[in-house]
């Protein structure tokens, strides 16, 4: 991790971005287990550096697709805690007016289409968004977030291949958290890395430490720039770890204890804050202030969400077609 070339405000914005996701997820988990929040949840504690590092390399005009685990991507891409929280509470003030929920969190106005909760489904879609940018000669980039499980879907092969043959402005970002739901990646994938699959498509593939937010940012920035310049896609593999269950009440008993302990030592926020202190960028006090501000941001979002109106039952009939059938 090298912080020399970055301004302290930028570094603290990365810290704030990761803390916002972590605290959001922890608070949401609690609300869900308390039974105050409906539905199901898939959370990304431990993977915050992936979303924050990649999205820091994007502009507001760029777009991302996400997965069944979308909270981090949504917040990192600029969906507000207020809008995301209201959506998880299924309120009319949510970013999808209560029609998306956790699994389909998104808001195109913020550059994220509703999250695609079918594994791999977002890969052709992101490719198509990039095709539109190229055809319309717009200097925009699409980022496709996916988990390691997605790379064994046919949609991965079809989508990445089309991105490659047409040199589209898209970056395929694989957050390899070592498990597809509960199945270890090495049970289902023969190659040593996922990035090496890129050679099958004639595009660059890079594997990096996905818990190093600055490495993620710098690598993503280069891939985004390459895409923007018309040189085509990159397959970017970020090695990370999910320090929570796959969904709902999953205690993740399939993750060995010593692996989990190592992962907690290696989780991105602890690492980054330690680094900021060691490098003299920020004191513990500055970070505590950010933590407190994020707490307030989340609590006020919860307050707004729980007091916001629920949709009327018959609102279920709206928003299907533009031109009503």
């Amino acid at each position, binding site marked *: 991790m090298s912080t020399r070339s970055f301004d302290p405000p930028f570094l603290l914005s990365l810290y704030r971005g990761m803390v916002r996701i972590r605290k959001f997820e922890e608070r949401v988990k609690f609300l869900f287990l308390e039974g105050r929040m409906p539905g199901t949840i898939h959370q990304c504690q431990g993977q915050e550096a992936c979303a924050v590092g990649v999205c820091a390399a994007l502009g507001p005009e760029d777009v991302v697709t996400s997965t069944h685990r979308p909270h981090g991507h949504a917040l990192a891409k600029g969906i507000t805690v207020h809008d995301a929280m209201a959506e998880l509470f299924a309120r009319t003030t949510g970013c999808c007016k209560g*029609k998306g929920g956790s699994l389909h969190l998104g808001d195109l106005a913020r550059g994220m289409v509703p999250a695609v909760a079918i594994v791999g489904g977002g890969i*052709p879609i992101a490719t198509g968004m990039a095709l539109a940018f190229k055809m319309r000669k717009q200097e925009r980039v699409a980022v496709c977030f996916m988990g390691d499980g997605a790379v064994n879907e046919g949609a991965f092969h079809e989508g990445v291949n089309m991105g490659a043959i047409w040199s589209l402005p898209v970056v395929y970002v694989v957050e390899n958290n070592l498990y597809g739901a509960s199945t270890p990646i090495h049970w289902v994938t023969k190659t040593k890395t996922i990035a090496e699959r890129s050679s099958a498509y004639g595009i660059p593939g890079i594997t990096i430490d996905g818990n190093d937010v600055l490495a993620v940012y710098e690598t993503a920035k280069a891939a985004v720039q390459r895409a923007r310049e018309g040189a085509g896609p990159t397959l970017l593999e970020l090695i990370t770890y999910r320090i929570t269950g796959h969904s709902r009440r999953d205690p993740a008993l399939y993750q060995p204890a010593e692996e989990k302990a190592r992962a907690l030592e290696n989780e991105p926020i602890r690492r980054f804050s330690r680094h900021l202190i060691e490098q003299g960028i920020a004191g513990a006090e500055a970070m505590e202030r950010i933590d407190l501000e994020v707490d307030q941001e989340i609590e006020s979002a919860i307050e707004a969400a729980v007091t916001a109106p629920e949709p009327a039952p018959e609102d279920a009939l709206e928003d299907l*077609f533009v031109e009503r059938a």
Partner: protein
Amino acid sequence: MTRSGIAEALREAIRGEMRRDDRVFCIGEDIAIRGGWGGAFTVTLGLEEEFSDRMINTPISENGFFGVALGAAMMGLRPIVDVQYSDFIFLAMDQVANQIAKMRYMSGGKLTVPLVMRAPVGVTGRGAQHAQCVEPFFLPLPGIKIVAPATAYDAVGLLRSAVRCDDPVLMFEHKLLYGSKGVRAETGAVDASSEIPEDDYVVPIGKAVVRRPGSDVTIIATLQMMHRSLQAAQLLEKEGIGAEVIDPRSLVPFDWETVKASVAKTGRVVIVEESPKRSGIGAEIAATLAEEMIEYLTAPVKRVAAPNTPAPFAPPMERFYVPSIERIAQAVREVMSF
């Protein structure tokens, strides 16, 4: 006015839409190859000469290119997706059923998916995997409008409506009705050509047409079955039976108004379909009529459909499988006996 078959008429309609709106583009397999075929049935033949950068010739990756089209549509383009045979759309079912159909709804109505999917159907000498009528699979799927033009006039008018519509539209076309020429011509083709007016007319989505008036019985059929129903009606005329033939043209939304007005008049209904009978289009129509029109019905609603088997290959079996003019006529005679 020029007389055209469906393939040719669609080609010119697509050309017109691409000239009118530079956001319109075509995407699919073998659609833009010089010296090629213009898709499986010549619809896009030669369009690549005029629109070299808007004819996206894809790998054989149906799930992939339906998803690509969705992504492009959400970013403001207006794709026309060409799947060579409707049978192949099953490869793209995640994108069609989970993504294309639902993206607007999941967004809370914040985004639009202006996208046309063109899919050839028809039991046509190719057996189980290139000759299905897949329409009933898509009827229960909220979020997609479905049209099925039986004439060149309707193909042009519905294509224009579909391209200009801000919602996903699935357009079923029939292989025997295309009038494809040259090496892509179909054995057993039916003349579905029309005089195509020069003006920019549209056929609205969701509007049926009465193809032939009659007061004794209502026959409801799309695509090739509509043409056979017309022939059956001519036959029945000689027997003194006046059959009204309704071509729904759109399956979603469905023009209940036109159908109900006819049923209120005739009290007798025969529904003809080229797909298997179980849970077919006829089942949906019959159920709705039973719910809402029972007091007008003077005979049981009759369905003439394919059996619940795959489409067979051998010509004698295929002739048995697809509802014939005689089977349609016989069904009408049966409902007339009440």
